[in-house]
């Protein structure tokens, strides 16, 4: 009892508990459990952190105290852990090859995450694309980068598209290439019992990569979007790869309702069908 108090005195929460505990006999029992407690305590760093958050007494944090009756506190965490079963320990995205083969290595890649703020992303990306003049003595970057890639996965996909759309609108005349794929995310889950049992889960989350380029891109590539087209997809309908850009350029003057892509679709489509052949020659 005395030793217990002495050791725990650093944590005043536990002091009161120890003082209340009437039976020294309990100590013996707890001391036996201690071994388990130590084992789980040393191998599970993340568990401890979560317990701090939940307001549970996080005894295992103080590894120096473990040899002493502080392990009394282990049972409540164990109960708590049992409710959840497994805890996610880490999450790593597996490296996947660049979706745009043949891209220069120095291209700015914006990795959009769920919590990224669009103003931060855009503030940075726009500055790089437009090029800051006279930042450091000037004359270094005259008109900024030529290309930028936005990537995001899972719940960040929408934000990624929004960023690309904003940049297209602000910079103007950007060629776009969009690629979709699954990204494998490796998650390591640790058993709550602390019996060193780990589970590795491979999850696949949809991810998107959008390449925006001031230089022309290959119009044959699936997912290519020429600049300033508001309804490129429907024009592509006619020929899978061929003449995408031509049809697109033909389309633009036809759509008087610039910002209303959907309303002009039928018209576009009809024209496309009607002059399916004559669309290509004007080029």
């Amino acid at each position, binding site marked *: 009892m005395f030793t217990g108090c002495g050791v725990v005195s650093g944590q005043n929460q536990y002091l009161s508990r120890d003082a209340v505990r009437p039976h020294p006999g309990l100590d013996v029992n707890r001391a036996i459990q201690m071994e388990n407690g130590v084992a789980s305590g040393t191998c599970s760093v993340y568990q401890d952190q979560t317990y701090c958050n939940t307001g549970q007494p996080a005894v295992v944090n103080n590894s120096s105290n473990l040899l002493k009756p502080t392990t009394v506190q282990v049972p409540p965490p164990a109960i708590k852990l049992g409710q959840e079963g497994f805890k996610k320990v880490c999450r790593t995205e597996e490296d996947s090859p660049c979706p745009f083969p043949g891209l220069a290595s120095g291209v700015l890649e914006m990795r959009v995450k769920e919590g990224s703020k669009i103003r931060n992303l855009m503030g940075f990306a726009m500055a790089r694309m437009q090029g800051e003049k006279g930042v450091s003595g000037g004359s270094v970057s005259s008109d900024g980068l030529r290309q930028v890639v936005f990537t995001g996965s899972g719940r960040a996909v929408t934000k990624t598209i929004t960023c690309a759309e904003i940049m297209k609108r602000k910079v103007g005349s950007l060629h776009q290439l969009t*690629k979709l794929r699954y990204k494998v995310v490796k998650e390591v889950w640790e058993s709550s019992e602390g019996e060193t049992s780990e589970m590795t889960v491979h999850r696949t989350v949809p991810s998107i990569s*959008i390449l925006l380029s001031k230089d022309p891109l290959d119009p044959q590539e699936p*997912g290519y979007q020429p600049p300033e087209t508001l309804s490129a*997809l429907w024009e592509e309908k006619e020929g899978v*790869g061929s003449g995408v850009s031509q049809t697109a350029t033909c389309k633009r003057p036809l759509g008087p309702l610039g910002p209303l892509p*959907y309303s002009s679709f039928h018209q576009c489509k009809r024209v496309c069908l009607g002059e399916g052949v004559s669309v290509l020659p004007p080029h």
Partner: protein
Amino acid sequence: MTESRNPGISSISQTAQAHPESCSPAVEMDPVEYTLRKRLPRKLPKRRNDVYVNMKTDFRAQLARCQKLLEGGGHREICVHGLGLAINRAINIALQLQASSQGVLQLAANTSTVELVDDLEPEDPDEAAEPMTRTRNNSAIHIKVFYPDPQ
């Protein structure tokens, strides 16, 4: 005007009468309660092979519908559209279709911005406030899922 709106502050507003010029803009700025009604997105093109993904219908049902179009419906390509939150689901459907076709199907994704209109209707009809509209943008994705042409 001020008194009628805030009877509780009538005593203060009497003192405020002394300089009505500075007071009146504040009255106009007074935030009237509005109900926000989201209009449906603009009219969309609808062909047989257009699939508009939403978040209300069951995911498997929407996936099955796409599969049916591609396999049973005899379409060589379909268009999967998603707006806002449904972008994720649209991508998922497209990637699932591709995976289940053992990589035969190809995807061509395009993105766009859709202008949406919200109606702001004043809560209290007695208020002098007029109904307003507010436009905002939302992102959309259009994924063409197609069998590449044999060449």
